[in-house]
């Protein structure tokens, strides 16, 4: 299995498209950092201008933690696309290039092959997230230093700097679960398709589509929403509350894990029976 995973990782990291994700993240992160470097104070002042009428402030709010949080906010929308770019290609890419005929005529079970492919795709997903964390936090620390974290939502939450790192760790941990669900979805679509455009577009369309429907058709969708995996893509934000809603968090984790099992189960059952005609 380790052998197969190494081979799959080698294939993933030999492809140009794999680096699109890293390049896109680097571009967005650096852009945000530059933007905040020059205009962060102005934006923050705008955000809390009403408070300034009644309060005086002290402390460095433009810091690495703020940046890491902003990047989490803006990037978690894009990351599924970057994940699908690679995981959607894992099976469909082999079908499209005809290389399944090379792989599946070797003495290796399809289950093993699928497992190693998914693990490799998952490792890629992790490396994207870790890359994003290192870049946003690491470069942020170098340029902006630490400080307390201000989280602007419908409310304003402020966390002291020694109360922040575990929140990021937990948010990323939760992000790993949701992004694994995204990877599993695009992996499943990849098994259904013989070209990789389908699963990539399909993954993004499903996520955006369901999100839009559950936002717009709110009253109609309300009973269904708690069971949709897309509903929890932003639930990492739960960690940026002083009182963490553990009920909601537990439900989010259970729903995401259930979807991962369903997506992967479907993939394995379907692909093990699939006629390779490509």
């Amino acid at each position: 299995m380790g052998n197969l995973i190494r081979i799959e990782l080698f294939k993933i990291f030999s492809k140009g498209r794999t680096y699109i994700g890293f390049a896109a993240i680097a571009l967005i992160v650096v852009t945000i950092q530059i933007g905040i470097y020059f205009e962060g104070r102005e934006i923050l002042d705008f955000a809390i201008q009403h408070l300034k009428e009644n309060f005086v402030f002290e402390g460095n709010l433009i810091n690495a933690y703020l940046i890491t949080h902003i990047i989490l906010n803006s990037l978690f929308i894009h990351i599924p696309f970057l994940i699908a770019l690679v995981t959607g290609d894992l099976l469909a890419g082999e079908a499209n290039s005809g290389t399944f005929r090379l792989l599946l005529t070797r003495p290796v079970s399809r289950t093993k092959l699928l497992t190693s492919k998914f693990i490799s795709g998952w490792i890629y997903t992790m490396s994207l997230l870790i890359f994003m964390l290192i870049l946003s936090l690491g470069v942020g620390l170098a340029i902006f230093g630490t400080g307390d974290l201000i989280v602007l939502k419908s409310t304003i939450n402020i966390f002291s700097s020694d109360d922040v790192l575990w929140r990021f760790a937990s948010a990323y941990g939760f992000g790993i679960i949701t992004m694994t669900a995204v990877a599993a979805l695009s992996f499943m679509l990849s098994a259904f398709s013989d070209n990789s455009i389908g699963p990539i577009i399909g993954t993004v369309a499903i996520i955006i589509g369901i999100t839009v429907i559950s936002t717009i058709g709110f009253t109609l969708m309300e009973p269904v929403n708690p069971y949709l995996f897309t509903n929890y893509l932003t639930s990492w934000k739960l960690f940026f509350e002083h009182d963490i809603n553990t009920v909601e968090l537990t439900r989010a984790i259970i729903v995401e894990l259930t979807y991962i099992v369903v997506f992967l189960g479907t993939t394995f059952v379907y692909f093990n029976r699939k006629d390779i005609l490509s």
Partner: protein
Amino acid sequence: MRNKHRYNYIVLAAIILIQIFAGTSAAYSGNNPKDLLDKFRDHMLQVHDYKAKVNIRVDVDFINIKDRKAVVFFEQPDKFEFSAGGFALLPRKGMEMEYLELLQTDYSAINAGTKTIDSVQTQMVKVIPNNDSLDIVLAKMYLNPETHLLHRMKTFTKESGSYTINFSYAGHPYDLPDQLEIIFDVKNQKLPVSLTGDMKSIGKEIKESKKRARVIIDYSEYVVNRKKD
């Protein structure tokens, strides 16, 4: 003769005005309000400067922040500094002994009844500055006639709305408060989604509204008049 008449009219009019302003039959306790205020002012003026540790608790329903520790420094008349080591927010009004500025200018004072605050019987005095350049237009001050200490002050300003400060004392030599509770209104602000990334708030109306803010400041380890000495 005519002048004396006019003088009487003015006095009468002033009395009527004061009565109307006081709004009640003004249970006049007998103390001259200015005496009480002067005693309080003179007592507090002994504090030329102070430094203290504070614990800041901000209680506004749209701001979530845990208690913060800071060190504050105040020097007469209006030098105020604080450092928190991290982020902290303090109310713009209420921590700079604003009453001293008011009580050191020309003002009118009217007794306006009594009120029991935390089992202390206080005398309420309405203070109206005669100097137009002050931001304060009216202050209702609740003082303990026995100790001459201020227990509550409700201030109305031209520019910054109104705010109320409740003072608690724990027998500090200079009678500096060990706790301030500062209450004022803040505007809730609707933040654009582009700033918050809060997708779930899309389509939900957040009305800009006035919210009550309550900031409780606990003082400890006062160092008084260190600079003066």
